[in-house]
């Protein structure tokens, strides 16, 4: 069986969803968990600064994701961790030791390449044993370790095949097994699922989490796919132009983004620009002439009249034909467009003054029973705590 949706994957997922944040906080508190800090590292290529004085910590045994659009510097950062690029300034600490001057072949860090970089002239077995042989390990121990890796990645029956004789998914697992074989302190994964199709990718994500948990290795994944980062990682660092904008658990990245950039990059969001005015336990947001302000409950501090952005996720916006009762944020609009995605539908609703708000509903009923269609007048509403108030 290729994938066991039962015990393991579910447990790891649950752990991530509910305990992920706690686990991370516990590590943070204990202090001893900060195994691999990157205190202020900079990389320049000529005039171009790829990594701009970046500081972050990677905790032991965590699954850390560097997420960002192409060209944000995440690959450069990963190559610096692997040793293929030397930082222009700053240091990288691994277990208290600065590894910046150590060449890649002497680092206790291994990398799984985006192209997998499997040696085409070597069999699967030889590929996995490659790193072990370089360490001049005894034959018996190499055999045992390779067998262990083959078992972990369920490649036992492909051991004698060459890379071009196996499928893309199997190749991906060989690459993983090869990079794990030397039991690195840090395993770097460069877009590990970029070459897989959507179905296989999802399955592989769960496998990857499973393997990370079983081996207890610290994983650092580089990806531009936010869904992938959210699924596998215990902590996600969102990068932009060589800086980390926010590094936090997937839930907090999604629910409490610290900037418009993060809110916009992760998932779908509607951003409403306005000015904040303190009111009760939150703020009233004036966003257009002649319409009642929106209300958001928050403990962030804003000055009266300060420019701000209100970020609201589409799934938190309820859409109804009748005016809903008991909610402070109620707007009337007209359906401009509907994106039907099968399980959910996204509605683009235009307010009278032209602002378009996204609302999402799960399609629990058959399409024929869908209550709304194009040009319908509908009511949008959300709770006081649904939106996130962000600084301008």
């Amino acid at each position, binding site marked *: 069986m290729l994938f066991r949706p039962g015990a393991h994957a579910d447990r790891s997922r649950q752990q991530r969803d509910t305990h992920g944040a706690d686990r991370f906080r516990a590590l943070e508190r204990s202090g001893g968990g900060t195994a691999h800090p990157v205190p202020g590292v900079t990389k320049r290529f000529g005039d171009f600064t790829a990594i701009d004085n970046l500081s972050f910590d990677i905790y032991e045994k965590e699954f850390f994701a560097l997420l960002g659009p192409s060209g944000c510097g995440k690959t450069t950062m990963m190559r610096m961790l692997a040793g293929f690029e030397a930082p222009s300034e700053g240091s990288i600490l691994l277990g208290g030791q600065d590894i910046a001057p150590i060449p890649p072949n002497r680092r206790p860090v291994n990398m799984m390449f985006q192209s997998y970089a499997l040696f085409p002239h070597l069999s699967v077995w030889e590929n996995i044993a490659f790193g072990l042989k370089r360490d001049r390990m005894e034959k018996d121990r190499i055999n045992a370790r390779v067998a262990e890796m083959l078992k972990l990645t369920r490649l036992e029956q492909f051991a004698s095949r060459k890379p*071009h004789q196996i499928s893309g998914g199997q190749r991906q697992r060989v690459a993983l097994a090869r990079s794990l074989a030397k039991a690195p302190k840090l395993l770097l994964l460069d877009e590990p699922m970029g070459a897989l199709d959507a179905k296989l990718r999802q399955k592989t994500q769960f496998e990857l989490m499973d393997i990370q948990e079983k081996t207890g290795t610290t994983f650092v994944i580089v990806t531009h796919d936010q869904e992938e980062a959210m699924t596998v990682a215990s902590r996600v660092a969102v990068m932009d132009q060589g800086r980390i904008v926010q590094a936090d658990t997937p839930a907090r990245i999604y629910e409490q983004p610290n900037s418009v950039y993060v809110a916009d990059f992760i998932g779908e969001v509607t951003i409403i620009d306005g000015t904040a005015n303190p009111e009760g336990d939150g703020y009233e947001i004036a966003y257009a002439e002649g319409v009642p302000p929106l209300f958001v409950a928050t403990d962030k501090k804003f000055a009266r009249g300060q420019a701000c952005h209100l970020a609201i996720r589409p799934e938190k916006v309820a859409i109804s034909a009748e005016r809903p009762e008991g909610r402070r944020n109620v707007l009337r609009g007209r359906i401009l467009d509907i994106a039907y995605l099968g399980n959910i539908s996204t509605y683009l609703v235009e307010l009278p003054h032209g602002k378009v708000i996204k609302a999402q509903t799960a399609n629990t009923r058959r399409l024929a029973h869908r209550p709304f269609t194009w040009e319908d007048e509908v009511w949008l509403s959300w709770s006081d705590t649904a939106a996130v108030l962000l600084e301008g």
Partner: protein
Amino acid sequence: MRRALLILVPYLWLLALFLIPFLIVFKISLSDGALAIPPYTPTLDLSAGWEGIREFLTDLDFENFVFLSTDDLYWKAYLSSLQIAVISTAITLLVGYPIAYGMASAPDHWRPTLMMLVILPFWTSFLIRVYSWMGILSTEGYLNQLLIWLGLISGPLTILNTNTAVYIGIVYTYLPFMILPIYAALERMDGSLLEAAEDLGCSRITAFWLVTVPLSRNGIVAGCFLVFIPAIGEFVIPSLLGGSRTLMIGKVLWEEFFNNRDWPVASAVAVILLLILIVPIILFQRNEQKSREAEE
């Protein structure tokens, strides 16, 4: 039908340009020398009908091949050709590999220029290029002048008309045939393979031996055959640059043919040369096929 036609064309080509000439040469090698035009007997007389053909066939024999095995000039010439071809192939590989490696690791925009520089010598006549080496290698030649001027030697070296000159000539002439297939193999190689090797604990040098060399193996094999096969039968280079003591089968063939006018023996020499070459040619074809399969 159209498929059959399509296949027929290359086979007809092969038949006309390889098999028929080979059969003619083979037939001459079975004949006896004669003072006639053409200088051998028997000739096929079709006007005599069946009788003529039978007479023709009975006159053919393997006498010339027996002769070749009794005179040690021939097998010495074969061995010496083999030796010169093997050594010059090895030198060409040693010179060509670094050049191909350098070309493959050069920046992208440089590669077409470098490629052209390798091919450029083909634009002038091969004969002129070999002649110009005579000017370089002779006792008063540029090489000796340079070495004396640099103070490395006191008197001129005798290079021309020795085996050394033959090696230089063969290496020079066939270098592009070595460089191009190796370059093609190296250029296709994914650079991340070397990074992966380093990441797994290789030094740069071990990564070269464990990854780069095995992956360019097909290029190396192709290049070696492309140099070895023509070098073994080389005639122009040993006769222009080599001395009287340079023994190569191509030269022997020439002398049998034009000096002795012994066409049957010359043909027998050619047939044996072909038989010697068939082994590497088959190996070469197999290598090509294997590398094509590996790509699929």
